[in-house]
């Protein structure tokens, strides 16, 4: 089923939309979640939470790309879970409380910081446009999808060592690119 139809089903409050999303994008969502959390059970739980969040977000939102929208939700939920788990593992009540308050602390971000962050995103996008298609996909799969080198090697048909070297070169290029534009690293 096409994404537009799924969005229409979501607007019509049809639960078929969720089963269709799970069928179409469930595997990729679970992969991203597992990449972040390293735990299959947690990953499944986060993906289910993401479906619920999607259900609540659409409507009123109508995303241009359903997949990107869904993956962003999955990532946000997984990163929050990861930080929570990490804080719990530190066995510090303070860290857990800090994590629970993170939502309010993040709201304190200044306009200046927000502008700077937006600028960096623009630079990264411009940098990605300078890369070859293969390098760009490698970079995004590694630093957006958090794929392992092993999985990247499988996806691209390259050796794991080659993937590491290529990504290392791309990172170095990005560092220079940002430095030239006055971004402090």
């Amino acid at each position: 089923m096409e994404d537009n139809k799924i969005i229409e089903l979501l607007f019509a409050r049809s639960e078929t939309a969720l089963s269709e999303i799970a069928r179409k994008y469930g595997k990729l969502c679970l992969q991203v979640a597992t990449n972040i959390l390293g735990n299959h059970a947690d990953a499944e739980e986060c993906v289910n939470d993401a479906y619920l969040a999607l259900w609540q977000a659409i409507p009123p939102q109508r995303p241009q790309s359903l997949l990107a929208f869904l993956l962003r939700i999955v990532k946000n939920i997984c990163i929050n879970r990861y930080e929570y788990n990490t804080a719990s593992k530190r066995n510090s009540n303070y860290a857990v409380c800090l994590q629970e308050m993170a939502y309010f602390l993040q709201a304190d971000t200044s306009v200046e910081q927000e502008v700077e962050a937006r600028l960096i995103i623009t630079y990264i996008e411009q940098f990605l446009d300078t890369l070859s298609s293969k390098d760009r996909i490698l970079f995004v799969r590694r630093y957006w999808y958090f794929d392992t080198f092993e999985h990247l090697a499988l996806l691209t048909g390259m050796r794991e060592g080659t993937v590491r070297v290529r990504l290392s070169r791309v990172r170095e290029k990005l560092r220079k690119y940002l430095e030239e534009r006055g971004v402090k690293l």
Partner: protein
Amino acid sequence: MSDKKMLDAMHDIDDSYILEASNIKAKNRSRPWVRVVAVAACLILVCSAALLLLRPEPPVTDNGDGATTGGTGTSQVSFYCNGTLYVRDTSKAPIYDLPAAYHYQGNAILTHGAIDTELEASEAGKIYICSDGTAYFECTSRALVNGKYVLLPCIPN
């Protein structure tokens, strides 16, 4: 800029990059050497088979009693006797009684690699020549059939 900020910035890149990367499908790693090794293995196999089929005749050796043995290297059955090569005449059926006029030519042993329906390697026998020039290999290493050995028609080569 911290690593976390960098990853956060990456998180907000345009959807088009995310979609581009999502379309990638797993590929089989190309291993050109596998093809090379496979081709080399096939070539070796073909060359070995050709060498086996086209190997030269083994030297003819004298058994000391006038009989000599040797092989053709092919599936054609042959016998050596007193320096003459006799090739099995497959157009004629084996017989069990020699024709009236014949003389004993010598002992012969079949020592070829090929096995056919009639003979096996290292079968021993005698060569008889008839008055019409037809030779017969009497296969004395075989069991008697009705009190007689089988006689295989041969052609002196």
